[in-house]
C-alpha cells in the first residue's frame, strides 16, 4: 500500500507539473507574441501571419519612440496613477467595511441589505441617468467622478464578505472578552487574518481602475485629466482613421500595427511589476503533501 501511494502520487505530481507548464505556455504565448511584435521591424510585421517567438526583421524601438513621443502620455500616466491609488484606497476601505458589517451574524438587517445590494449589481439605469447624476453632484470633470461611483463593486463585496464569514468565531472570542468593539475587532483580527482575500480585492480594484477608460470618456472633458487608456486608444484609433483618409502619412501608417503592440506592453508592464508584491499574499497557504512526501 505504501508503494502504491508513492507511485500513484509521483505520477500524479509529474502529470501535474507538466500540465501546469503546458497551461503556462498557452497563456504566455499571446503576451510573448505581443512583446516580440513590439520590437519587430514594421515592414516585416505587416506581412507576417501567426505567432511570433522573437522579433521579426530588424530589432527596433521606433514603435515605443512614437508612443512616448506623444506629449499626453506622461501626463496620462500620472493621472492614471492618481486615479488608481485614490480609487483603490477609497474602494478597499468602503468595500472592506461593508463586507465586514454584512458578515456579522448578529446584524439583523444583513440579509435584506445583501439582497438590496445584489439588486444594484443587476439593475442599472444606464449611461444617461448616471451622467446626469454626476453633473448634479458637481463631480463632472473631477477625479471624484472616477473614484466615487465605482467605490464599491458588489462582486468584490460578496467575495470579501464570504471570506470574512469563513473566519472561525473563536478567533474573535478572546478579543471580545477583552472588551474590544466591532471596529477594533475588524482592524485587529479580521483584517490581518484575511490578508489573502483583501489583497486579492485590492488587486482587482487596482486593475479595474488601471484598465478603465469608459467612465473617463463620459465624465472628463479636460484632456489634461485623461487617463492612460484613453490616450492609448486615441493613438490606436487615430492610426486607423488616418490611413484610410486622403493624405495618409505612410510613415505613421506603416507603424500602425507596431504601435498597437507597443501600447499593450506600455499599458501592461507597470501592473506586472507590482504584481509579485501582492501575489505573495494569496499564494501562501497550506499545501497538501508539503509536510510528508
Amino acid at each position: 500500500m505504501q508503494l502504491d501511494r508513492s507511485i500513484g502520487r509521483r505520477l500524479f505530481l509529474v502529470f501535474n507539473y507538466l500540465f501546469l507548464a503546458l497551461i503556462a505556455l498557452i497563456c504566455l504565448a499571446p503576451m510573448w507574441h505581443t512583446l516580440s511584435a513590439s520590437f519587430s521591424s514594421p515592414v516585416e510585421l505587416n506581412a507576417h501571419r501567426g505567432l511570433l517567438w522573437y522579433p521579426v526583421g530588424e530589432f527596433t524601438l521606433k514603435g515605443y519612440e512614437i508612443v512616448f513621443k506623444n506629449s499626453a502620455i506622461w501626463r496620462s500616466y500620472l493621472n492614471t496613477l492618481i486615479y488608481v491609488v485614490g480609487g483603490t484606497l477609497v474602494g478597499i476601505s468602503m468595500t472592506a467595511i461593508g463586507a465586514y458589517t454584512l458578515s456579522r451574524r448578529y446584524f439583523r438587517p444583513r440579509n435584506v441589505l445583501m439582497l438590496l445590494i445584489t439588486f444594484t449589481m443587476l439593475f442599472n439605469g444606464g449611461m444617461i441617468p448616471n451622467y446626469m447624476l454626476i453633473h448634479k453632484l458637481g463631480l463632472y470633470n473631477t477625479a471624484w467622478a472616477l473614484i466615487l461611483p465605482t467605490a464599491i463593486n458588489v462582486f468584490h463585496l460578496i467575495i470579501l464578505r464570504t471570506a470574512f464569514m469563513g473566519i472561525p468565531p473563536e478567533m474573535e472570542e478572546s478579543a471580545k472578552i477583552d472588551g474590544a468593539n466591532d471596529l477594533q475587532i475588524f482592524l485587529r483580527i479580521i483584517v490581518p487574518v484575511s490578508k489573502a482575500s483583501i489583497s486579492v480585492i485590492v488587486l482587482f480594484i487596482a486593475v479595474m481602475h488601471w484598465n478603465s477608460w469608459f467612465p473617463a470618456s463620459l465624465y472628463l472633458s479636460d484632456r489634461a485629466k485623461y487617463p492612460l487608456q484613453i490616450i492609448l486608444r486615441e493613438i490606436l484609433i487615430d492610426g486607423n482613421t488616418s490611413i484610410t483618409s486622403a493624405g495618409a502619412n505612410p510613415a505613421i501608417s506603416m507603424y500602425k500595427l507596431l504601435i498597437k503592440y507597443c501600447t499593450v506592453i506600455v499599458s501592461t508592464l507597470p501592473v506586472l511589476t507590482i504584481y509579485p508584491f501582492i501575489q505573495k499574499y494569496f499564494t501562501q497557504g497550506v499545501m497538501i503533501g508539503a509536510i510528508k512526501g
Partner: protein
Amino acid sequence: MVKKRGLTKIVTAFVCGLLIFLVTGCGADSSSQNSNGGSGSVVLDNGDPTKLRRLVPEGQTATLKVWRPTHTAIGTLMESFSDTLFNKWMEEQTGVKIEWIIPVSGTEADNLAMLISSQEYPDIFFDAGLVYPTGAYGLMKDGVVIDVAQYLDKLPNYRAELERSDIRKKESYSDTGEMAAFYRFMMNDEPNSTDYGLLIRKDMLDKVGKSIPETYDEWYEVLKEFKKAGLERPYLLNSTGFPKLNMFTGGLGFGYMNYGGSTQPFYQVDGKVRYAPLEEGFKTYLQMMNKWYEEGLIDQDFLSLNSISAELTLYFDPNSGSYAAPLSLADVARQIAPDPSMEFVSAPHPVVNKGDKIHIGPPASPVFAGAQISSKTDKLDLALQWLDLYYSPDVILASNFGPDPSYYEQRADGSYAFNDKVFNNPDGFAPVDMMMYVADYPMVNYKDRSIGNEQLLGWVEENNKINDNAYLISSSLTLSDEENKVYASIMPGIIDYVEEMQVKYIMGLESFDGYDAFVQKIYDMGIEEVISVYQKALDRYNSR
C-alpha cells in the same frame, strides 16, 4: 474605549455629511456656466457686416462653446482646435474665444445624447447631424437647434452665398421652408469628390500581360490570371460582401449602402425610389461573386475583414491583387509594402459593356450640413455673426488654406493648392493633420483641396467622368416624425436579414434556387411601406 466609539460616529457622520454636501452644495455648478452671458450677448456694431472685424468691444473677450467631433490632429499636432492657425487668427480678428467640447473618439453619438438629455447645451454644434439619428434636420425638429431661415436678415454673408445658386437653396431649405443649419457649400457647386476607388496591382497586370480591366468580364479574366500566377487573394472583399460607397457595384445599375445608421440604402431611378435587393442587378452581383468565390478569386477569409484594422493587414500583403480602398493608399503602398515591386493603379468602375456610363458611386453632394446654433444659447447674436463671418470673402480663402501664405501657392490657372509643407511635411506629419492645423473648417470649400498629387487627381477625375450620379438620392431628404417611425420600426429588421443572406449567397451556403423566396420575404417584412414613405419624401424634395 469611549473615545473609539465616539470616533466611529464622528467618522461616519463626516462621510455621510460629505456625500450630502456633494449632492446639494455643488448643484450651483450648472448655473455658473451662463454667467459669461453678460458682456458677450451684445455684438459690437462697427462698420460693414460683410467684412471680417471685431465682434467684441476692445479690451473684452466673449466665449462661445462649440461641440465638435475630434480629429486625428488632436493629440499629435495640437492639443485643441484653438491651436490651429486659422482659429488663432479668427480669435485675434474677432475677439471671440472658443471653448471646444470634444467627445472622446468613438463616443460622439452617446455624448451628444447625454448632453442633450441633461440640458447642458453648448452654443454651437459642428457636424452634430452626422451622429444624430434623424440628422441635422432632426436636431431642429426636436428643438435642439434654431431654424436659421428666420435669421437670414442678420446673416448678409451667408445669405449672399446661399442665394448664389439654386442647388444651394434646394438642399438647404427643408420641404417646409425651414433651415436646420449653416450649410457648407462647394465653391462652384460641383459635388465634392472622394478619392475612394478600386486599386489593382500594376506589376501583376504586367506580369500576366493584361491591361486595366474595364468590364466585369475583363475583371473575371484578369483575376483568373492573377490566381494562375500564384496570388492567393486576387480580389479582397469586406465582410459584408459589398465594397463600401457603391464601389464596383454601380455598373450593375443599383446603389446599395447597407450600413444602417443615418445612411439610407435606397437609390432612385427617374424619381422613383428603389431598393437594391429587390432588383435584378443585385442577384447578378451575388451570382457573380459566388462564382468568383467558388473559383478562389475572392479572398477565402473575407468574412474576417469586418474592421479597418483587419483590412489594413491585407492591403499591403503581396498576395493581394485588388480591392476597393482610398486611392491615396497607392502612394502609401509604394513606401511601406514589403515587396518593392508592388505597385497599385486605379481601375475605373467596371461596367457591363465597354463605354457604358454608371449612374451611382460614392455619395457626393455640393451641399452638406455644417454648423448649428443651439436653441438655448444666450449669445445668439454673437453666434450668428461669428458663423456668418465664415462666408465673408475675407475669410473663405483663409478657412480653406490657412491665414499663412507659406503653406499654399496659387497656380497658373488661378486656383490654389497646398504646397509641400503640407503634403510632404519635413517633420513627418500626415497631410490630413497638417491641413487641419493650418486651415480648419471651411464653410465654402475649394474642390479637391485635400488631394495631394497629380496622379491621384487624375484618377479621381477619371472616376468622376464616367459617373453622372443620376441615381443618387440627396442626403437632405427629410422625413416627418410619422415617416421616421415607420422607417425605424421596419427597416432594421430588413437590413439585418438581407445582410445575413447576401453573405450566405456569396459563399454558396444558400442555393440560388431559393432566391425568389428571399425576395418575397423582404416584401413580407414590409419593404413596400418603407419605400412608399421614402417616395413621398423624395417627391416633396423634388418639388422644393
